[in-house]
């Protein structure tokens, strides 16, 4: 094992922060729906990839600015999320069965993507594409920086909404004790529709960021599941900044491991970290 130069190490830490930001952005909606709706939504990953492909299509064929595609994707996904929540409420799906139903949805979306865009790799070529700038001895790629900015902005928005608005307070009350919240006039069903819609829109936002910096293939839906769940659990369910902070911790630890040893050792760090958190964390999640 050779010890890398400090510049290389700093660059790894930076790339770890960027990857972590995407973990956090993917985890944000997942954490909210798990913590506040008690749903383990595997379809979140499928929606994110669907968003990425739509963004790719609108930007590379339709000529839109990749970030502007979010204006189209977010409202559409909000409607999809709310529709799915209606279905979940209609059939009173338990948390465990939600996992299975959303896995079914994931398979369907994967098939849909494969049918529309084939199983080949797709890469969004845009004005941001390879843009990067120098900061001291570090290279900062623009698409990743946009992802970090979006992750921070959306986490802050979710945090402020949960903390300061009536909507957020009702959501937290309903998650804590639904019958009591209902007795105090909280319309739990309507809230759940809004929240599920928002989570799906967040998946869409994560999808746009995916399209900006990564090569897309339908089968890659599954590669993100493990590490993003690790970020969600470590960050604490239903907490706005939890996934982002945990995502960055995981991303940086992975990047440093890759720099110090071989890239193939990277998962060991993040998942050992997750196991340690699960076993040693003193209070309830």
């Amino acid at each position: 094992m050779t010890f890398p130069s400090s510049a290389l190490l700093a660059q790894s830490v930076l790339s770890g922060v960027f990857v972590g930001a995407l973990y956090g952005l993917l985890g944000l909606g997942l954490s909210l729906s798990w913590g506040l709706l008690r749903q383990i939504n595997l379809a979140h990953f499928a929606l994110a990839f669907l968003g990425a492909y739509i963004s790719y299509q609108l930007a590379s064929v339709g000529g839109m600015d990749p970030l502007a595609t979010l204006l189209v994707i977010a409202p559409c996904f909000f409607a999809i999320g709310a529709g799915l929540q209606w279905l979940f409420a209609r059939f009173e799906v338990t948390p465990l069965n939600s996992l299975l139903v959303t896995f079914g949805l994931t398979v369907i979306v994967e098939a849909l993507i494969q049918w529309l865009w084939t199983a080949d790799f797709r890469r969004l070529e845009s004005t941001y594409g390879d843009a990067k700038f120098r900061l001291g001895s570090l290279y900062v790629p623009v698409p990743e920086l946009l992802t970090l900015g979006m992750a921070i902005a959306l986490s802050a928005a979710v945090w402020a909404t949960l903390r300061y608005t009536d909507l957020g307070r009702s959501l937290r009350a309903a998650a804590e004790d639904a019958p009591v919240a209902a007795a105090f006039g909280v319309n739990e069903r309507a809230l759940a529709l809004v929240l599920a819609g928002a989570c799906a829109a967040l998946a869409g936002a994560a999808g746009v960021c995916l399209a900006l910096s990564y090569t897309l293939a339908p089968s890659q839906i599954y590669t993100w599941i493990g590490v993003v769940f690790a970020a969600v659990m470590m960050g604490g369910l239903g907490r706005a900044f939890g996934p982002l902070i945990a995502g960055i911790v995981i991303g940086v630890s992975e990047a440093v491991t890759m720099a110090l040893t071989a890239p193939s050792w990277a998962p060991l760090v993040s998942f050992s970290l997750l196991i340690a958190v699960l076993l040693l964390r003193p209070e309830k999640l």
Partner: protein
Amino acid sequence: MRAFAPILLAGGALATIPWWGLPAFYESFLYLVLHWIVLATSWNILSGYAGYFSFGHGAFFGAGVYATATLASRYDVPFLWTLPAAALVAAVFGVLLGAVVFRVKRVRGELFALLTLAVTFVLATIVLNTPLDGGPGIYLSAVPIPKLGPSVASSFYLLALAAAVGTVAIAYAIYRSKFGTGLFAIHDDEDVAEVMGVPTYRCKLAAFALSCALAGLAGGIHALFVSYVTAGETFSITVPLTVVLMSVLGGTRHWAGPALGAAAITALTYAFTAGDVAIAGKAFTGVVLIIVILFMPQGIVGYVMARRRRPADAAVPAARATATAQAPVSPPPDTDHGPMLEVRGLRKAFSGVQALDGVDIDVRRGEIVGLLGPNGSGKSTLINVISGHYRPDAGTLQFEGRALPVRKAHRIARAGIARTYQIPRPFAHLTVLENVALPAMFGAAALNRVAAERDARQWLEFSGLAGKSNVLPEDLNLHQRKFLELARALASRPRLLLLDEVLSGLTPGEIDAAVDLIGRIREQGTTIVLVEHVMRVVMALADRIVVLNQGRVIAEGLPADVMTQAVVVEAYLGKPRDARS
């Protein structure tokens, strides 16, 4: 024994297939069906029966794959000899993991699922980066395959068939056994199961070990079937997700559910693997899964079983609480001297609140002690500490002259102490009869399953629930649930019975029936500690009264004397105005 013969007969019939002269394709297809039956059924032993959903089945399957691959390719161990090793490696790995994880109470439900998934990725990374694999995968085409049937494909088919028959038979045996009942109770309410005498930690560990061993065996066979193993393929998310889907589709609460689900999903995916329809087939599998979960959340077998049980319910007549059946004979009391239960200096605090603040209580053999006190005085905490639910901060508990094991609720139950819960906590998915039979198997009586069910019927009759033995607890009203709590506590044949507000919420008529019942319990020689707010009941039943207030004993003695003492009146009603000034 009823299903062993059909399982073995079916296995024997299927074993003749290689000699029918079918194309090799069928044997390979059937191999896959059997392979998934082993994996799904073995997963179900822990995850379905006990409710510990594991997403780590891929890790134990993979441990088996790499055990066989390494032994066969590097050490030239004959293929068949590697299979027991594959099962053993997976089982040891599972036991080591379980020994850590099952001690942490918090890691249940989703957290257990996530933890086992993380373990899979950790193991995959280690395998990939060490000489076990090293990256390029392991070729096994040079390993000789023993000739069990007319062709190589049929050899694999017969091996998988033997594994599948064995696995399903094991799942069935557990389903019918005392061990299985314990697992089902853990699924519904682990804490109550422990208090009823189920050694939950050991049960989970044993189920996990079996589950892992069988997955390892399937892995060992599969390593040679695919003949080229890679870490990426072996430890992919496909194995855990597929076994979960198969089991849930078939039904996780029945021994045959996972096998049915495995056959259905394997057939479904195989039907769609050809060219153009592959994508449509994938989407179709997703649609089938969603529809089944939405309309049959209990799985196919669960759905059928529920349909079969319903019509029987209608015919059951309403139970009468005033039934006068004779109770089964209880064990003769021991003849040693001194108090039966001796509590000394017991203290317990919850984040600053001193719930028990140095409690001394004696309970003598054969008496009924009324435990009184205002809300929050520590009565329920005392019951919870004696029954082993909480660990005391300080103090000693002696039962029949021996110290009670601390925080080992199942051993306390074995020692002869039973309790009821203020809010009934029946096992939701066990029938009323099974609910009562469980403590008879795991409590002080320690009966076998048949004797326990016979006993349970008597206790149901004793408590007026005889007509309800085959319904689920959700179909009982509050009063019947309270009596079910009593029947469960009695079925373990306790020498000391702790009753925590069994009468709250009942109507006066129901209370009279319950008082009659408690009187009859005492006549059999059972000692009772009665926590109760209904004063006329305490006055009628109790030989002696102990009053708690703010975690301390403030008075004890004969009922009529205690209730007129100034400290007791004060604790309930406050100080008179003139006394305060």
